[in-house]
């Protein structure tokens, strides 16, 4: 589904990603871990199409198609979803109206009619139940005055509504208490299928107790320096990242 080959990316001439190779197949969950500043969020943004980042070498293939020339919205239409570490506040636009716009724009891009209002409402009801979201919450302005936990839960609600092929969760666990973490993880697990894939970006192993990865990769200094199974996450939790750095620098 996703194949990243020797990806180099930079922002304002500062090189951040220095040769990433990663393959994600349908039905898989990949975790990307690593110390601060290793390039985790950059990788997420580059896949989702943030324009400030320049791909200087290598490529990203989504279903064997090179997506470098595609805009962020075109990638979204093809099923890429990024759950943001810091979602943006949009005063005056309710969560419901925002989702309506996002879904109908995606449908328009696929040559489909707007989703009938009745279906939209049903979908909103079902998905908000899945994430234990209060209906009142949906008429509030998007992310405005939301707590950290509400923002993250709202990100996963959007993911549930948009039903992406490839979801990238960027530090979704930060700012979540244990109950919110459980709800969010539960939501992600229920959305998982054999046809979609998830990349979980995190500092800590905590989230991975709930969303169990098939593969764990350690990103350090712009490169994936170690990959393994879910036991690698436990090892990192126990030993920290220093041993990895030493291995790399040796």
């Amino acid at each position, binding site marked *: 589904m996703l194949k990243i080959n020797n990806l180099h990316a930079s922002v304002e001439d500062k090189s951040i990603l220095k040769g990433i190779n990663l393959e994600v197949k349908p039905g898989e969950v990949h975790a990307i871990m690593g110390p601060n500043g290793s390039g985790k969020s950059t990788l997420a943004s580059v896949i989702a199409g*943030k324009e400030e980042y320049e791909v200087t070498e290598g490529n990203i293939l989504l279903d064997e198609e090179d997506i470098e020339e595609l805009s962020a919205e075109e990638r979204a239409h093809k099923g890429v979803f990024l759950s943001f570490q810091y979602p*943006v506040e949009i*005063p*005056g*636009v309710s969560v419901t109206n*925002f989702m309506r716009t*996002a879904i109908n*724009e995606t449908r328009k891009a696929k040559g489909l009619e707007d989703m009938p209002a009745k279906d939209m409402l049903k979908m909103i009801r079902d998905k908000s139940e899945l994430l234990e979201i209060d209906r009142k919450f949906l008429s509030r302005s998007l992310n405005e005055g939301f707590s950290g936990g509400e923002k993250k839960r709202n990100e996963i609600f*959007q993911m549930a509504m948009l039903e992406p092929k490839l979801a990238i969760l960027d530090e979704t666990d930060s700012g979540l208490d244990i109950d919110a973490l459980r709800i969010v993880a539960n939501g992600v697990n229920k959305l998982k299928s054999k046809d979609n894939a998830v990349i979980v970006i995190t500092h800590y192993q905590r989230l991975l107790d709930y969303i169990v990865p098939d593969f764990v990769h350690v990103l350090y200094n712009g490169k994936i320096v170690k990959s393994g199974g879910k036991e690698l996450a436990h090892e990192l939790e126990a030993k920290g990242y220093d041993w990895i750095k030493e291995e790399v620098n040796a």
Partner: protein
Amino acid sequence: MSLKEKLVSSFMALEDTVDVHSSIHDIRTEAIKNFEAEGFPTKRQEDWKYTSLNSILKHDYSVFPKNENALEFKDIKQYFIHDIDSYKIIFIDGKYSSHLSQTTHDGLDVCLMSAALTKPKYKVIIDNYFNKIAGKNGLTSLNTAFSLEGAYINIPKNKVVDKPIQIIHFSTGNESAVMLQPRNLIVVNENSHVQIIERHQSLTDNPVLTNSVTEIFTNKRAIVDYYKIQNDNENASLIDSTYINQKQESLAKVHTFSFGGKLIRNNLEFYQNGERIDSTMKGITIIGNKQHVDHNTLVHHIEPNCESHQDYKGIFDDNATGVFNGKVVVEKLAQKTNAFQANNNILISDKASINTKPQLEIFADDVKCSHGCTIGQLDESAMFYLRSRGIPEKEARALLMFAFSNNVMNSVKIPELKNRITKIIAEKLGVNLGFDL
């Protein structure tokens, strides 16, 4: 002959048509002298430093409108807030249109300035209020000299007006270039409440210059909600001077939506004559091409325990230029004044510009005054966020602009008007968001 000369000589023609032995005419005569001395403002004047009238004064304007050009409601319905019941005072090329209007004398006066200025029964009010707070500058004097027609609204004590009043000026272009000088007088007495919507709309590509003056008096505990919709075509220019005199505990709110026109200058002045007065002015400006919008505001805090709130948002694209000049004067007596001013701007293109200048003159020592202006671009991370949800660039930008102007939209108290403004903005931005905000 320059426009100034033409206007001064036209005044003599005016004298053939009006009662020259009235007190009104004394005011007019004084005013034309004033205009003759002052002339049109130039960029040498501090208040006009960033706005030049040269490009709009060069036309050979017809000063006295000819006969009414008939308009059918169905053809101009879109310019009305037509989905609510309202009083309407409608003018076509400066002349009152009775068939498009809905005036009243039933418990309140919603009618014509021409009647108020000439009929004896209005004389007391005219003597008390007419030209009492309007400025003595060249443009306002010019309007005063030619003040013949406009809206006259008088709300008696303890009256909540049951529906909004719409004042709309159409110009039809049956003359090559026309100059209009509407003059409005609005008196809201104790404990009364009125909502007014004003609009100037050209239906032609011929140049139109409107030099409008409005005087508003809000007496004790009166509330006035005034909305100005400025969404004209790019051959129409508007100079709007609105003067508001407030008595104690009154609330006056003016919203100005500037979305179109060649050049728009808003002079908006509040004078607080009493305690616990609230003066609020808010605006959204969204322009492009070579359009120019200038907001020049003044709040004069004269007595203690009053407030003023200013919140202006501007979005400028292409070669558009904006000016915000907000002056707050706090007199020595005006202790415990709370005065807030904010002017936030977004420049979409490299060639657009905004000159923003807060001016605070504070002579009292126990006051809270704040001001802030910002000039920025649309937040790129916010754009990325929206686009990553599948929302295309244009729609994403529009959503951010709505979010940016949301504070101002939220204080619009007429839902149908709010919807209309939202639709105008969406149209201007070329988007269909598929929902009402």
